[in-house]
């Protein structure tokens, strides 16, 4: 149910927006919109269907938490 409603929402919004952008002949805007909408539908529908989504938080943790530990060692 949730998946269908989110999917319908995305389809309707994309249809209206693409029509508008093509009328105004904003090519670059159209491409960026399509790319972002693809990411958005992957994230939202993927989450509802429990598809694997790589979590950026893990990468950030891996890079920055050693620096954090090191800085705390400096201050203790």
């Amino acid at each position: 149910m949730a998946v269908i409603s989110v999917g319908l929402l995305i389809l309707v919004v994309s249809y209206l927006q693409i029509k508008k952008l093509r009328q105004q002949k904003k090519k670059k805007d159209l491409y960026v919109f399509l790319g972002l909408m693809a990411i958005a539908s992957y994230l939202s529908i993927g989450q509802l269907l429990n598809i694997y989504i790589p979590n950026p938080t893990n990468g950030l943790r891996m890079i920055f938490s050693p620096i954090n530990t090191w800085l705390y060692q400096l201050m203790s």
Partner: protein
Amino acid sequence: MKEKISSIQLAFLVINFTIGSALIFLPSSIVNHSKQDGWISAILSSLIGAVFAFIIVSLIKRFPNKNFMEILEFLLGKWFGRLIGLFYSWFFIHLAALVLRNGVEFVKINFMPNTPMAVFSLAFGIIILYTSLSGIEVISRVNDIILPISLIGIWLTIILMLPIIEPDKISPILANGIKPILRGTYPALGFPFAELVIFTMIIPFVNKQKNITKIFVGSQLFAGITLFFIVLITIMVLNIYPTEISLFAPFNVARLISIGDFLSRLEILISMSFIISIGTKLTISFYAGTLAIAQVFQLMDYRSIIIPLVIITVSFSFLLEEDIAEVISFASTTWTPYSFLIGVLIPLLLLGISFIKNDKS
């Protein structure tokens, strides 16, 4: 760039943004490290935060006719500048998702524990959709009205707390030397103050750029003082250990207000202020993220990409962390160096490069 805001409106935005989610989450994160000296850490961090604000505003002031993405491209070259610009856009959207999550968790845990999180996320999502479609002028005009309400809520809570404070809770001062204070200052620098880098996207909208350094730094300091009083009152009323372990320490403090047996349950005042300032912080960071992406790709109108970005932000607010404990652990182990890199180191580097480039030409 057609839209314009006045410098007073910028000051109001800075105050509301800096207080933002720090209003509720700052005391625990400071007191965790610096114990009864947390109030010194709060002062120290807002003073160092003023330096951060100064760096950001002087970088923008060197290029009066360019927006931040154009500055990046000018200083770092076309492709590398755009890459860093994308990194900044990601940071703004990430910040928006985290703030959204904080607000949702606050409402869910304290007021409506049985309602699913999606309800609040969607409500906040509709707010950011509507405000960012209306543009920065409307955001700042709304902020002019709601910031005084939020400040009245905060200061009224502080004043009503005065009968039950115990000033000896903050002694002994400097019992363990300077190092615990530094350790407490460090997360406070990353959490509200390094995030001020978002105003690189907002400052170019201000119509009179003349006194902007004074106004920007001054309003940051005003917010810092407010946060200082919040931390001080939390330590004096709750004592150290309860402040460390509670999720929403100032909210728990406000619960203790009871004047003459009939004026009680005034925690709603500070919740109101929190929802107002978190809404503004969310709106500003989302708006800045949208604008950053539009400027990186040189779109004609940022409004055409708002709807996918709202969906992305709301999904990220669910996806990034499992629960409130993970949110807080992320904020305490990863957020500070991450926001230091984006909010302080890169602007400082850009400022240096701009000086070198000026000397050559």
